[in-house]
């Protein structure tokens, strides 16, 4: 007896839902589920028309209680739970939001949205950072995760600054008191232990290289004893004794009265190199800022680096070029570009903005042109500044081409293809 009106109600409800009349559809589905509480379809449609995600969750749980194998209900419940978690987070009910989102994360660990929202409802910045790292593992270009990560890392720094009194000059990790061997990157920081530094097997070379690139870049603005000293120590830990000595000579030039330091430098020279024992009067020219050791080089010719402070432009350029088969590396300023080159290799073409915080485009262009490893890379300046003066400055800094924003995607692709070659995967 109840079958016929329930199916009629369901049919009318579906018609109303398809016509966009949600309110009427909801009433009809509610009546249909009341008339036939075991009708899975009615509950599914009711869930689709629910006013709140919590209501949708209740409907879908009901479907699963009728038929635990209903795949549509299972997948719907995942998204309803996520929506409910988001709604709870927006309503500032952090406890409920956290509970729902954690459950969604367990069921769907590859959903970056869940991890992103979870980071927003947790009170512990370390936990938030771990969630955001998870997002970036899933999608390295997620700008919201990057922004969130910067925010929480800033909070962690603030917290640690209260607790820590010392930071490693190489990897910047904090400690409560000065260390002769960093607990994080394991680099030896005391020149008197140069033998240990040179044979340091436990050093985290990746961290040291990144720290080294940062220290070398900072030489442009802070050419002093401490910077040269720690660059030298970083080189020692990487086993590059000649480069280390070069920087120790520079450090000595800044602080000629430190006899203990000079004695240590002489000892290193006597013991580890075939050079004459006396410290030369004129210090050798320091290694170029971009000329760091072990810079990986790529064999694949389709890597393009975009250096721009605007995440929107970075993403747009990446979208445009990855559609035609290029692999993209993104950097927000000159320093980050150098670091990315250290860790990810030298790209085949660089698209470079001029006005950036930190190191600007002209400076980066000059640094790259002075480094033998990067001197031949085509550099295309992509900027909003279209004056003749800037174009001349770009040319003088060593750029190959000058493009102005807003860019035309087709023109950009043509220029990149002309300067960097057409990738094998074009059209895929």
């Amino acid at each position, binding site marked *: 007896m109840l079958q016929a009106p329930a199916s009629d109600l369901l049919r009318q409800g579906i018609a109303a839902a398809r016509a966009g009349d949600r309110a009427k559809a909801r009433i009809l589905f509610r009546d249909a589920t009341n008339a036939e509480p075991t009708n899975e379809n009615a509950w599914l449609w009711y869930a689709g028309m629910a006013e709140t995600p919590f209501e949708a969750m209740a409907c879908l749980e009901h479907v699963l209680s009728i038929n635990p194998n209903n795949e549509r209900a299972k997948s719907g419940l995942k998204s309803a739970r996520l929506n409910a978690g988001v709604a709870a987070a927006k309503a500032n009910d952090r406890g409920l939001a956290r509970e729902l989102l954690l459950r969604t994360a367990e069921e769907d660990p590859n959903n970056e949205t869940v991890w992103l929202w979870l980071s927003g409802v947790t009170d512990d910045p370390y936990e938030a950072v771990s969630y955001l790292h998870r997002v970036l593992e899933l999608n390295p270009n997620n700008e919201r995760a990057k922004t969130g990560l910067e925010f929480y890392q800033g909070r962690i720094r603030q917290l640690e600054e209260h607790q820590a009194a010392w930071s490693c000059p190489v990897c910047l990790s904090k400690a409560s008191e000065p260390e002769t061997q960093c607990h994080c990157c394991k680099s030896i920081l005391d020149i008197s232990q140069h033998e240990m530094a040179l044979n340091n097997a436990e050093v985290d070379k990746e961290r040291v290289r990144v720290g080294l690139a940062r220290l070398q870049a900072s030489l442009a603005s802070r050419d002093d004893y401490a910077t040269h000293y720690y660059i030298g120590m970083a080189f020692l830990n990487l086993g590059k004794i000649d480069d280390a000595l070069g920087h120790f000579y520079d450090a000595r030039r800044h602080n000629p009265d430190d006899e203990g330091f000079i004695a240590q430098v002489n000892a290193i020279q006597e013991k580890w190199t075939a050079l004459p024992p006396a410290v030369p009067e004129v210090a050798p020219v320091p290694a170029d800022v971009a000329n760091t050791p072990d810079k990986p080089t790529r064999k694949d010719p389709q890597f393009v680096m975009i250096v721009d402070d605007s*995440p*929107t432009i970075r*993403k747009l350029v990446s*979208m*445009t070029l990855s559609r035609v088969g290029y692999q993209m590396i993104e950097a927000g300023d000159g320093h980050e570009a150098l670091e990315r080159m250290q860790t990810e290799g030298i790209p085949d073409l660089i698209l470079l903005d001029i006005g950036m915080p930190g190191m600007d485009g002209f400076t980066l262009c000059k640094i790259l042109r002075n480094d033998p490893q990067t001197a031949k890379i085509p550099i295309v300046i992509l900027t909003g500044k279209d004056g003749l003066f800037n174009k001349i400055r770009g040319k003088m800094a060593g750029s190959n081409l000058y493009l102005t*924003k*807003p860019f035309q995607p087709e023109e950009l692709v043509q220029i990149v293809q002309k300067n960097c070659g057409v990738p094998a995967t074009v059209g895929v």
Partner: protein
Amino acid sequence: MKAGYSPNLEGDLIRLLSILDFSRNRLEQIPPQKGAILVLKQLHFMVNAIISVADQHITAKVVSRDANSALKKIIEFYAIYRSLLPDSPSLHLMALFHKEELAFQGEVYQDLFCRCVNLFQDIVQSYFSLFTQRFESSLKARDWVEVAAGFLVELKQTTRTMQATAIA
């Protein structure tokens, strides 16, 4: 394939976003003392850029409640723009010989200016959401959604600063 879906959609949106981001940077560089007129003109330019893409991809066949609501916002935006700059010449050449002035000052100007900026923000959001619906599938829209979301965050910061400057 979704009805009305155009294969050029993504390319057109990249071009549009490039223009909008460039204009957003210009908005940030407008000095506060010269602010209002230049800001309004830049917003007007950005709305026109959005409309030109919408004309190609949001056709009469796909008009929905959301599209109607976005259209209403555009009409209101133009109305406020015209009431703030009633004599604004439509041709660039004419603008060279024309000294423009705001029609209102004080609190009335502040209210209208802030409303105009809010409407602009709503227009961008509404049309971005309409453009997203025009993609063939949500998977194909993913890159666009991500970049558009990032842009909206930056735009919100810019407009907030503009409103604060106008009120100050």
